[in-house]
């Protein structure tokens, strides 16, 4: 595996399955009463968050702590970044503090890549969401959650039908999931109003549908995306009510799903907008499993990147 995890494209299908398998073994170990492992003792993981996040930051933090790494949380608010410090100076400060891994969330697409390629730091860089580009650990935890609900999918996901519904255009979660699920052999259908489908979609290995009601009946997994009001400056749909009527997962659509189908959402949910409260709380919903699986996947990723001999790179001035 590479030194960094910036994109799902950094992983081969077998490396992705390896991470899922590592997470499964970790889940068996974590079932017991004591949950702390000594594996990353003495290593330092920095959570560098330029965008607001609760679950991702907490998830990385508890994953690192369960492996006995030291965790430094750094959020842009209330730090020198709000005084105008550049990414370069911030990175060099982290380097001087001896970070072994930097988990970065940033509003600009490609920020994680910039940090990894810059030569400013020798640490492994883990992309925890960059702009509208990618969020690889979210895709891995979604794949892990799917596999735990469909135990027949051991080596790959062939035969699995997944619908990803909502704001595909702005969604890094959708992008990483499309890359990973198709890499593993699943059939992905994107469902959204035409305004929220990215230009160039024909280059993706997916089907596109504007009709939620007819597409929903055949799928095994429905992955709802959050309507990102912070990125909705332009009008992509006439009103929230109209969006909800066309692309929200309400009780009628929930009932038209296959018996074995599951409902996913990366959170935080806008209840009543893209997903109704009944759907979010139904027995088909695996939203809370996604959260707890997130810690296991991030433990597996940290183990793969930091658990072995040091892969540290060169630092250039």
């Amino acid at each position, binding site marked *: *595996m590479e030194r960094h995890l910036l994109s799902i494209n950094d992983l081969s299908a077998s490396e992705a399955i*390896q991470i899922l*398998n*590592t997470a499964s*073994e*970790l889940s*068996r*170990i974590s079932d*017991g*009463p*004591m949950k*702390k*492992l*000594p*594996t990353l003792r003495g290593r330092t993981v920095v959570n560098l968050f330029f965008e607001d996040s609760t679950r991702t930051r907490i998830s990385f933090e508890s994953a690192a702590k369960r*492996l006995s790494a030291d965790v430094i949380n750094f959020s842009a608010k209330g730090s020198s970044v709000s005084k105008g410090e550049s990414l370069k100076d911030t990175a060099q400060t982290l380097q001087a503090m001896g970070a072994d891994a930097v988990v970065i969330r940033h509003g600009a697409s490609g920020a994680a890549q910039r940090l990894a390629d810059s030569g400013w730091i020798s640490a492994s860089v883990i992309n925890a969401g960059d702009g509208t580009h990618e969020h690889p650990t979210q895709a891995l935890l979604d794949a892990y959650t799917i596999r735990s609900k469909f135990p027949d999918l051991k080596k790959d996901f062939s035969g699995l039908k997944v619908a990803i519904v909502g704001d595909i255009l702005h969604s890094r979660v959708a992008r990483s999931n499309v890359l990973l699920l198709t890499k593993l052999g699943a059939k992905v259908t994107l469902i959204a109003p035409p305004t929220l489908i990215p230009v160039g979609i024909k280059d993706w290995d997916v089907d596109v549908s504007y009709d939620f009601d007819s597409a929903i009946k055949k799928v095994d997994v429905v992955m709802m995306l959050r309507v990102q009001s912070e990125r909705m400056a332009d009008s992509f749909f006439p009103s929230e009510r109209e969006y909800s009527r066309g692309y929200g997962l309400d009780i009628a659509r929930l009932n038209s799903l296959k018996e074995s189908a599951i409902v996913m959402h990366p959170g935080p949910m806008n209840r009543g907008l893209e997903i109704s409260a009944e759907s979010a709380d139904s027995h088909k919903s695996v939203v809370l499993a996604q959260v707890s699986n997130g810690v296991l996947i991030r433990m597996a990723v940290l*183990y*793969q*990147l930091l*658990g*072995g*001999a*040091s892969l540290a790179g060169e630092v250039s001035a």
Partner: protein
Amino acid sequence: MATVLDAGEIGRALKRIAHEIIEHNHGLESVVLLGIPTRGAFLGNRIAEFLGEIAGPVPVGTLDITLHRDDLRMRPPRPLLPTNIPPSGIEGKDVVLVDDVLFSGRTIRAALDALGEIGRPRSVQLAVLVDRGHRELPIRADYVGKNIPTSASESVRVHLSEIDGSDSVEILAGA
């Protein structure tokens, strides 16, 4: 390359270890076998089978020690191997760890740490197919299939039919 144990000898050694486990623990009431993957897990299953024939069923599982190794940073990350603790648990039990070769003792130290995360057994015992010496830690085996004096540069290869096709123990000369 010299073969030091053949299939028949391995079978007899494991059967003798099974008898010794019963003798030492005055029965099997509180005994739990935990094999250390990969080959220790197969040996654990085989000893459990012998125990089943002689005295009755005994809980058997596996214990992966990868996350507790002290040499993790000297090699690329290793894949994790299965850990299966029997449902009856290890709390207050007499746990018998099973491994193929006892060498430096570092694997067993890691196994003791891994056990500590799971619970508090009444006692921990160690069964190995081969003890080749050269301990680096104060650790010894309670049940030994065969003591094989080796030089530090030689390596000991255990082959088991479950994954290697046939049973044998060989010594390979060092480089």
